[in-house]
């Protein structure tokens, strides 16, 4: 047979065998039988030298081309056979396996945020009892004997001289008395407080406050303004403004109510702020000399500021909630919404 035809026939047969091969072993056997040392195509390539000189070039050319074609067919078949078999696709729109996460209570979220801000400003966190003596809750805070807050109408009493604290301010007194004459006194005091208020959208007989106190030499009302501006901007955002309105608290003088830019309207005036453009967030003032004295500090030598805020109120402003009672209903469909979002 003509060597050229022989090459063509070998190639044809090999390609058919490759097409039929269904595993890698079969392919290897095909490779060996054609291209191995003893292979039929190898034999032809080896025998080229024995051909007449005029045939050598055309046959050699043809045989080499066949060898290349065969090698590439083997490689393709090999790749096809070793490919990973894929599973059927899934419905990517079906729900994923849920990771059940709970949520922190919004009052904790807001309180933690407040505490973080003050801790970052150098304040320490202090604590005190909820059942207080009348002295720490009233007398020591310069609340006179006949002040309405002392009335049974306004505060809860537990036995004769014990009250459920009506504000977190007793924490200030306790801390000062424990640490005097150490300076500075720089604390925040969070906790539960109690007032005999009928429950309504803005009152609860049990609520939460956070108190802050800074006593040192040379503390000014300007420092109070600076500190509260800084606090409000960290809590509500860079853009908010803070304004003071003169007010009265027995334990501070001068005293002020502090407003911040309404978070809903940005001072344009809206129903949320009653058209005022500002929302009241806390009460503040310079610590009354009598309170400093009761804390063991000399009001001639040191001065200080204090302020107290309602955590429920801050949370209502922050989240746009208009009924304080929702914090205490513990409906998980309500609480579940506080799990996400960046501060």
């Amino acid at each position: 047979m003509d060597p050229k035809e022989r090459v063509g026939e070998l190639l044809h047969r090999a390609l058919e065998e490759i097409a039929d091969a269904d595993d890698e072993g079969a392919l290897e056997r095909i490779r060996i039988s054609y291209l191995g040392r003893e292979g039929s195509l190898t034999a032809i390539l080896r025998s080229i030298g024995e051909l007449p000189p005029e045939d050598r070039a055309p046959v050699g050319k043809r045989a080499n081309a066949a060898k290349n074609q065969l090698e590439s067919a083997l490689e393709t078949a090999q790749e096809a056979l070793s490919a990973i078999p894929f599973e059927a696709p899934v419905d990517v729109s079906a729900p994923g396996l849920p990771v059940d996460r709970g949520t922190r209570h919004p009052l904790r979220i807001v309180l933690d945020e407040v505490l973080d801000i003050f801790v970052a400003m150098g304040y320490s966190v202090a604590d005190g009892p909820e059942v207080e003596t009348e002295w720490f809750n009233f007398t020591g805070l310069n609340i006179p004997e006949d002040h309405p807050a002392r009335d049974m109408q306004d505060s809860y009493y537990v036995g004769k001289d014990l009250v459920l604290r009506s504000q977190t301010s007793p924490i200030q007194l306790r801390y000062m008395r424990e640490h005097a004459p150490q300076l500075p006194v720089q604390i925040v005091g969070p906790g539960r407080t109690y007032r005999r208020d009928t429950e309504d959208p803005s009152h609860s007989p049990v609520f939460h406050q956070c108190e802050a106190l800074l006593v040192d030499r040379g503390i000014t009302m300007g420092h109070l303004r600076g500190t509260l501006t800084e606090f409000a901007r960290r809590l509500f955002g860079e853009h908010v403004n803070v304004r003071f309105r003169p007010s009265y608290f027995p334990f501070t003088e001068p005293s002020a109510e502090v407003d911040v830019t309404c978070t809903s309207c940005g001072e344009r005036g809206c129903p949320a702020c009653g058209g005022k453009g500002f929302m009241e967030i806390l009460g503040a003032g310079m610590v009354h000399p009598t309170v400093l004295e009761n804390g063991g500090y000399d009001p001639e030598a040191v001065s200080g500021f204090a302020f107290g805020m309602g955590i429920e109120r801050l949370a209502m402003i922050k989240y746009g909630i208009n009924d304080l009672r929702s914090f205490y209903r513990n409906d998980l469909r309500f609480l579940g919404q506080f799990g996400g979002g960046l501060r």
Partner: protein
Amino acid sequence: MKASYRWVRRRSGSEQSPEELAETMTFLGLNVEEIAYLGSRVPAGARMAEILEVERRPDGLAVCRIDDGAAGATVASRAPNVRPGIFAPYVPPGVAMPDGHIVEAVEFGSVISAGILCSAAELGVPGGPSEYLLEVDEAVPGADVVVALGLDDWTFDLDLTPNYATHCQSVIGIAREVSAAEGRRLEIPVSESPGNADAPRADIVIEDSDLCPRYSAVAVSGITVAPSPWWIQRDLLASGVRPINNIVDATNHVMLETGQPLHAFDLDRLGGERIVVRRARAGEKLVTLDGRARTLDPSDLVIADERDPVGLAGVMGGENSEVHEGTSRIILESAHFDATNVLKTARRLGLQTDASLRFEKGCDPEATLRALHDFLELLEEISPASAAGPVEDVRPRDREPVRLPLDAERVNAFLGTELGEDRMRAYLELLGFTACPEGVEVPSWRADVRIPVDLTEEVARMHGYNEIPASLPRTAVTGYVPGRGPVAEDAAVEYLVGAGFSEIATRSWMPAAYLRVLDPPEDHPHRHLVPVSNPMRDDQSRLRSTLLGDALEVLAAGSARERGAHVFELSRVYVPRELPPVSLPEEPKRLCLAASGRVRASHWMETDTPPVDFFHLKGVVEGLLGVLAIEEAAMVPSEAYYLYPGRAARVECHGSVLGEFGELHPEIARRADLDSPVVIGEFDFDALVCCAGGVPRVQPAPVYPASGRDIALVVPEETMHREVVRCIEESAGDLLEEIHLFDVYRGDPIPSGSKSMAYHLRYRSPDRTLTDEEVEVFQDRVRGALRRDLGADLRS
């Protein structure tokens, strides 16, 4: 307190609009809560009319011809004061009245009444009298009623703090502040009416000068009691006070303007002409003006005639001396009473009046005469025939004015300002403070200014709180090192939230309903409750001793949902040291975990999500102990009354109890209306913190491979996992790394009363690869120990 915008403007000379004025007042500390327009309900189309002619019919109806500035009309009226020559508001037919009805032409026999002549009440003025026609002496027929009657006014509702209530419960007080804010010092003209020596004299005896430091009075005869002129009624109505008659209205008008309460006694109804200011006798009775009989107490100060009390000093007059229609002689009282005593009496009797609200805050002791003279001046207009006697002013002691030093440097150091002393003095003088050798003399009306820092506040207020430059204090930052408690709290909360539990916040009470649901055994600490003396509702009468009741209530409310509820609360409970409490109770912090329904939300890949049970909650608890690094904790069976017997564990550590948890006792579940499975537990958070470990001690990851072996043993049902673990740990040697229970099996072929437990044991050496032979030695020791100590039958 309510104040009229126009009145304040009139006295202060301010030109600000109502809104501007309200803002000015608010930034002075006079908090304006609400602004109401006085003429807001006046019917559109109401106009002034002159009554030209009146024909009284026998049935009392007056048929009037009026000039309404247009075509004129005939109008019928039943008002007693209707007469020719007066001007009154007129509403023509077709106009809607404030109460909604449309005015129509009405036939009265032969007369058709076209429209109505109105009383103040009919014009919709709050508190306006309804029994007579609103009349004025002068007006332009057809003029707009609102403007003609001064109803274009606004009532400010003020919420005054106690310090401003001393001097701002009056038009003059507010006007003084407003003027000062506008840079003017308010000058108040003093009226003085010479008394008539021929008229009767008031004879005054003060028996208790502590409670009544000053009593000024004047007797007036020739009085005619009648309605007040409209301008007085208008001022009163715009201040939220109801007009009564000219005498009472005049006392109220002076009080509203000056802040000094006045009271008029009917001189002819007094027993004798002497006024005695004394303490009440025990059991003495007085019927006050509101018609109620009051039993008095020696702590009350009364105004008495020679026999009986005729008034409660500073609070309310007595019915027995009330001014009435026929009154012709009065004694007018303008006195100063002790603030605290008025407060006590008013509070004891539950009686709050415009007078007591002013006295109890501290009135101006120098205002009594001025107020008296103002009254007499008004009287000349409202009862021209009256004749006043000489003004009496009994004042046992002179008042010592308060003088305070003004240290400009200190004020600046306190406020963070750089104001000159001149500027400070100018601010103070605007408010009526005067210079004196000691520094500054406090005006008599400022009972709230007592110590130097009070002056600082006034300077700050006049300068403007918001003008004080803000800066941050430069204190030595000590930095905060949170204690173990707060750190543990954060870690526990973060873990529990990650474990699918949501935080709840409940109130501090222990309602009786919780006690009924829980029903703790007698003498159980859960029954030792701190009582609240003055609860507003029954459910506030005790403080809680446990968080369990609230958690169950939240579960009951949320149990309808598919996954149920997984909740926790970290809060205080209240433990009395003695009952009734005389010392502060303990307030330990508790952590309550509770879950109902299924362990996870169901999912289409998991068709049968298991319900919560003991081991579910135990896993959560173990995770919590892990987070707090409490390694030595042991769990032993618990008999807590609220847990399912045999499915409850107590967590102990170093001899203290950390808490108890398990499945809820089925009787409590029934009483709480919980029908899905519930697990619950309560932990002493302070004890958890106490046992919590510190920073973990860590080892490098192991280098050499581990060798694992399974071991299955058949043991009696009572044998606990804990005993097996202890037995294995004690026998396996130091290279045992982990014991893992991977199967518990009961049933064929295991004999009943026994169970098969299968464990995987893992051994590892830190410094070499263990050989099979070595591991077999360990396993032999383990098997031997299990057989010997536990009587185990080993299957492999």
